[in-house]
């Protein structure tokens, strides 16, 4: 049985950064991931990473933009930490090899991004996430003698000892089917978001909310789960993401009449207002009949106004995407886009060191809710979030591990999980197919928990989620094998997504106001008097059927009082 000071689950940017930080602090480290680390969805982050590195910029300006972007739901102490540590982190990334784009003097170049008061987004063409992820993996290969990598291991449960402390996890080797316990003094969740609970989504098939659900089942609170980001520019043809970098480079959004409709919503920032603002504006244009296309369900993103050579240099990935996946040369014609599910602002509630409610359990990145994004995440703040809080979690976990003994674990959970997996494999083909339930979940969440929401729709959504939870108990799979049985993992992932969906819809029904990405047609205004706090969701009691319980958590304010939000 492997035993390490620090165990990290998930190997995207947050997980890899945590692993490197913990190893640098002298810990023994294991990093476990259900996919090879470079397949993690951080790879898809395109546009860049924010940091106030321009001498004329100030991290406080970045912090204020973030607070405002969050619609004052973000915790300001955490935002201050993220923004003040950002420039140092960018320099660290540069030093370990990230090939950031340079300006003519050879310094880091910066591009404009949504919701930012000045250019502060460092980038590598439009493959920034990929470039950083691959460079971190280079470092993991460098650290091969200090960080044990468990690639293609699927986490089935978190382990807790009698005192309630998290002491590791149970995981399945996808390649062999072997089940094993991993013992650790501290465990860091870095498993990403739950985009796959929505269809369509920009998220990869692996983004199934594993860590959120596992922490929830282990007793941790989830926070801000109602805050789901719809990205303003996803391709209508297939739901793929077109980076905000396109608008950062100057692209326009047009309605059917060819109007730049953002004039109405954000006369100053125009297309570079916060994502929630732009997505709502687009959805309004579409809902009011000014959409393009035969179904009038799109607006147009016009990249042709950006000089072609700049497009080819800085936005080449979306040129390829348009050409290969929609048959459109974006350098010559506008491309139909619409808002699409992109990011979960909420997640496992943590403090500024990544610690969750469960002792010994940390969370960092999209799985976590520190909360630095509050009601709406700014573009290019997610990579920053993963790295800063990945690093802090790794460092804190390592410091704690240095002063404690390896906790004892039993293999009761291992036996339970093994039995549960066998039970799924053995199910008779009498229920529904897993894929059917997943499909219905995605379509329903996208219908009832989208850009605009109301009581009636969300109530329906909640009923559907609850019904699907029941149906999932008897849903069957085809694969009876042990080697790469992706089918049975799909069944487990469905369970994770259903937990998260329940939390999302429960919190969204509760918040009777419009704030950030949570926009209700029955409560259209922000209401600071009654709703200026976080909502948390936790499991009321033990066991898989325990209902969701709502609570309030205070927002931390340091220097910025809530103000009206205009762009």
């Amino acid at each position, binding site marked *: 049985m492997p035993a390490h000071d620090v165990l990290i689950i998930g190997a995207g940017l947050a997980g890899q950064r945590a692993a490197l930080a913990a190893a640098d602090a002298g810990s023994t480290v294991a990093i476990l991931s259900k996919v*090879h680390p*470079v*397949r*993690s969805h951080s*790879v*898809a982050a395109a546009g860049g990473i924010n940091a106030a*590195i321009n001498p004329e910029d100030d991290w406080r300006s970045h912090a204020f933009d973030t607070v405002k972007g969050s619609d004052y739901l973000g915790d300001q102490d955490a935002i201050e930490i993220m923004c003040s540590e950002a420039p140092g982190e960018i*320099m660290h990334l*540069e*030093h370990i*090899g990230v*090939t*950031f*784009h*340079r300006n003519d003097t*050879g310094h880091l170049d910066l591009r404009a991004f949504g919701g930012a008061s000045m250019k502060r987004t460092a980038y*590598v*063409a439009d*493959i920034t996430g*990929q*470039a950083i992820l*691959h*460079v971190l993996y*280079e470092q993991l*290969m460098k650290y091969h003698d200090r960080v044990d990598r468990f690639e293609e291991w699927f986490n089935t449960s978190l382990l807790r000892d009698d005192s309630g402390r998290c002491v590791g996890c149970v995981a399945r080797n996808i*390649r062999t089917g072997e089940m094993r316990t991993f013992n650790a003094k501290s465990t860091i969740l870095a498993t990403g978001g739950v985009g796959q609970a929505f*269809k*369509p989504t920009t998220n990869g*098939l692996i983004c199934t909310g594993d860590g959120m659900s596992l922490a929830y089942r282990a007793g941790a609170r989830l926070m801000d789960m109602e805050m789901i980001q719809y990205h303003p520019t996803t391709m*209508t*043809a*297939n739901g*793929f*993401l077109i980076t905000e970098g396109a608008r950062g480079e100057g692209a326009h959004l047009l309605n059917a009449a060819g109007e730049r409709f953002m004039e109405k919503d954000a006369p100053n920032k125009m297309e570079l207002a916060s994502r929630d603002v732009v997505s709502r504006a687009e959805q309004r244009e579409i809902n009011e009949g000014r959409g*393009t*296309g*035969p*179904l009038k369900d*799109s607006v147009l993103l016009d990249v042709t106004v950006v*000089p072609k*050579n700049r497009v*080819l*240099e800085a936005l*080449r990935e979306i*040129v*390829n995407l348009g*050409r*290969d996946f*929609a048959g*459109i040369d974006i350098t010559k014609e506008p491309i139909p886009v619409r808002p699409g599910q992109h990011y979960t602002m909420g997640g496992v509630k943590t403090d500024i060191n990544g610690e969750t409610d469960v002792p010994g359990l940390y969370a960092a990145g999209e799985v976590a809710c520190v909360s630095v994004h509050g009601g709406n995440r700014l573009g290019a703040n997610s990579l920053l979030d993963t790295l800063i809080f990945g690093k802090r979690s790794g460092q804190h976990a390592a410091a704690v591990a240095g002063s404690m003994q390896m906790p004892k674990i039993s293999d009761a959970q291992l036996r339970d999980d093994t039995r549960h997996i066998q039970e799924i494999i053995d199910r008779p083909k009498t229920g529904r*197919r897993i*894929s059917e339930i997943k*499909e219905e979940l995605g379509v329903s969440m996208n219908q009832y928990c989208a850009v605009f929401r109301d009581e009636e729709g969300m109530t329906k959504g909640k009923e559907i989620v609850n019904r699907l939870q029941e149906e999932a108990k008897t849903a069957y799979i*085809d*694969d*009876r*094998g042990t*080697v*790469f049985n992706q089918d049975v993992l*799909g069944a487990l992932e469905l369970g994770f997504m259903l937990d998260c969906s329940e939390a999302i819809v429960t919190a969204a029904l509760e918040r009777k106001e419009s704030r950030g990405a949570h926009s209700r047609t029955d409560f259209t205004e922000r209401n600071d008097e009654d709703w200026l706090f976080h909502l948390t969701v936790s499991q009321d009691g033990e066991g898989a059927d325990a209902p969701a319980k709502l609570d309030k958590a205070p927002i931390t304010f340091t220097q910025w009082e809530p103000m009206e939000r205009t762009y």
Partner: protein
Amino acid sequence: MSTTEDTTKTDDGAWHGDSEGLKEFTLRLRRFDPESGKAPYYEEFVVEMEPHRSVLDAILTAKDHEDGSIGIRCSCRAAICGSCGTRINDKPGLACHTHLSDALDRSKDGKITVEPMGNMPVIKDLIVDMDAVHWKKQQRVTPWLLPQEPLPVKEHIVPREAMVDVTQSMACIQCGACVSDCLSMEVDPLFIGPAALAKAYRFVGDPRDSRHEQRLTDLANDPHGIYDCTHCFKCIEACPKGVAPMNQIMRLRRIASADHDIEDVNDGSRHEHALVNHVKKWGTLNEAQLVPDSKGGKLHPRSAKEIASSVSVIATALLRRKVTPKTALIHHKNPNQSEIRRIYSEIGARDERLELNLYITQPDEPEAPGDQDSSHEAQIESTGDQSAVNTPATDRTH
């Protein structure tokens, strides 16, 4: 039966579901279950989908609706994560990046055959063991930056072009498509290979790395290193991201030999010089001279040994009249040799080496004719980056 997201029409007639209509496609998947004790076999699945949808979409539809045990790695569906490297109708690439219609066009039997990638052991169905080959080779090239110490307080100040240049190899998503069809690796499984050597260029081309010469000396002297590539272009054709691994290997060679004067034990550098000199002298390759010249000249002890060991080959060639003593000894000269010499002197007169880098585009470069009207099919056929190919530019390296 479609699980597709609702695809919609656009005004200009770009791809969309309704007007294009659904079409039946027959997938022929290579199945292998290591637990069954049975040999691999092929299984057919019929799916109904829009022709512009990807082979991955079709496989996932079959998996969702008919057989959940079909094994394939996948995540992003947008050619970014690099999971779904496969061989489709004998051509390596990403399943998510291959349209059903294009795959069908390449098919000989009206079916879309999908198999696991080559040069790597198969684990199950379309899943191969990348650790055993691909990642092991990555680890071989010391794949991390070795910067000059002490580090600067802020960022390294480096030319803009240099960072864009190495971004071409950073664009690699480690999908393994180039490894799958590398001919050199088929012959020499120890060949470091296109992906790992492209990764090596990412450091050799990076001005922040302090060990260029050590890296190059290592890769030049490794018998499975940069001179093991046979220049077959397969990896360039296979790469879905325009990384052009072979070009990166050739750049490693040029930098090793021309900039660092590394004379390798594999005679790779001397062989290249010999080739260049032959063309300069005769306009053509002089086979009889090539071996001794690659060894350092006829009189060099290395040549004597090589010629001695080649006697039987030479004798057989003469006996079978593949060559005659006359053609072997008196070499045919190109009649336009003066033209060739002119090219040599023009290139030789340059202060620095100009490299054609198709990844960097220049503002004043005119658009290539025909670009406007080239069809999607043609663009997708070319696995390289068409847009960049149309606006070639040169950059200066080292």
